[in-house]
């Protein structure tokens, strides 16, 4: 099992989490643990769509285009997107999740993911 799979498995064990994944910024899924509930390509594509349109809208509004996280609440679930270096960590939960605890866990997972996926600089 790779380090990324380990991170996703640990996230999957948290209460309320229905699926998680790691995707590139342009919407390609690198690894996922969607528990058979969601389609991989739909989750990565829609996440990329939300991130890119938001980034463009913010740039047009004169805000810095860099997003660190995106939290989306819907009637039957929540979507958390956390920047992890060049990748994004995606977590889908039910609507009853304790959001503050989960946000902390997702942020820590994103930092770990960033460390794991970082290519060390050579002299």
């Amino acid at each position: 099992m790779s380090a990324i799979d380990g991170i996703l498995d640990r996230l999957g064990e948290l209460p309320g989490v229905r699926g998680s994944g790691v995707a590139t910024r342009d919407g390609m899924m690198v690894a996922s643990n969607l528990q058979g509930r969601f389609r991989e390509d739909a989750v990565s594509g829609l996440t990329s769509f939300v991130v890119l349109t938001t980034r463009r809208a913010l740039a047009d509004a004169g805000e810095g285009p860099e997003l660190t996280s995106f939290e989306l609440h819907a009637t039957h679930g929540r979507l958390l997107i956390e920047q992890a270096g060049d990748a994004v960590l995606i977590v889908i939960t039910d609507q009853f999740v304790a959001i503050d605890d989960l946000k902390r866990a997702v942020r820590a997972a994103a930092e770990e993911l960033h460390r794991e996926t970082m290519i060390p600089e050579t002299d």
Partner: protein
Amino acid sequence: MNLIQRLKIWKELRRLEQRAQEVPSPSTFIDLGQVYINLDMHERALSLAEDGLALFPQSQELRKLRRFAKKNQVASAIDTARAEVGRTPSPEAYHKLASLHLELGDFEAVQGVCEECIRRFPNDPSVRLLLGRAWLTNFYRDLRAREGAAAVEHLERSLETENPPVDAHRLLAELFWRLGADTRSKAHLKALENQGPLDAELTALKAQLQKRPSGGEADLEQLLHRAETQGRLPRSAVQVPAAGVTPQGAIQGGSGGGLRDALANLAGRDGVRKATYIRGSKALVKGDIKGGRDSFLRATRVIARSSQRAARRMDIGNFNKGVVRGDFGQICLCSFGEALAAVECDDRIDSTEILSELQELVAGSLVQNRFEEETA
């Protein structure tokens, strides 16, 4: 269509009308609306869609029906107005035709009709004013210097006619103020003052202009190009102090007061920079926002729309709240139906608290709205 077919349709129509009355639901309204449209009864279809939306305000299908019926209604009115222009051309007939095209958003047609009218009736100001207003709308939206110059040209030419329209002075005074052409703005304000007492908006503009020193401003072409290059106007629309709302795209009416207070409370919190409430094409703004056309408003609309699309496609229901964090701080949004409220603030502020305040604000506005509709 022969008589028997027609009788069958009328029978079906009666059945559907009865069904819509007895078992009202979006689908019974849609079925009936479809028959009205097939029979070219666009007025009836539109009024049915309005009735349906009063009962089911969240129904997307009913909104589509209303849009479609409205479009057909305007298209049929255009045919009548065009026939009128062909039969007895007059500035009024051209004005009516151009206004209908404008309602449909067909700017090329507006231009064509107005130019034809100007050729025939060069001394009539109404169509020039309409054309100037249409160019101005485009300029405020896209900030293209060419469109701004065209707006100024048509509005100024409307003032050269025998009956110069007062509205042209007002539009020019505001445009020149926003561009930073104070001397020109003052001249139009003076002309307005000569016609009678100024209203609250123009009085506020006068007060702002009096604070500015005279002279030393760049020429108009330069100012228009600067706005295009920088992608923004140097000044926002003048705010009327008592209302606290931008004149353009502002929400007015009964529910405005409570909303304004709630939004002002949010904007007054330490660390909150911008706060807005948007319903349809209207917006109420507080904080560091440059009027109804501020790009923050557009950004929040785009974020809410893309979030709604993603939530629906991921099968997690309808988007209702969101938080975007970045090096700018955070943007918190809350959306129900066509109402959207958003705040930009520092990231040290508790977003859960802000979201719950936004939710109260939006829910309160919807309840108030429904109450007003029911008591109207």
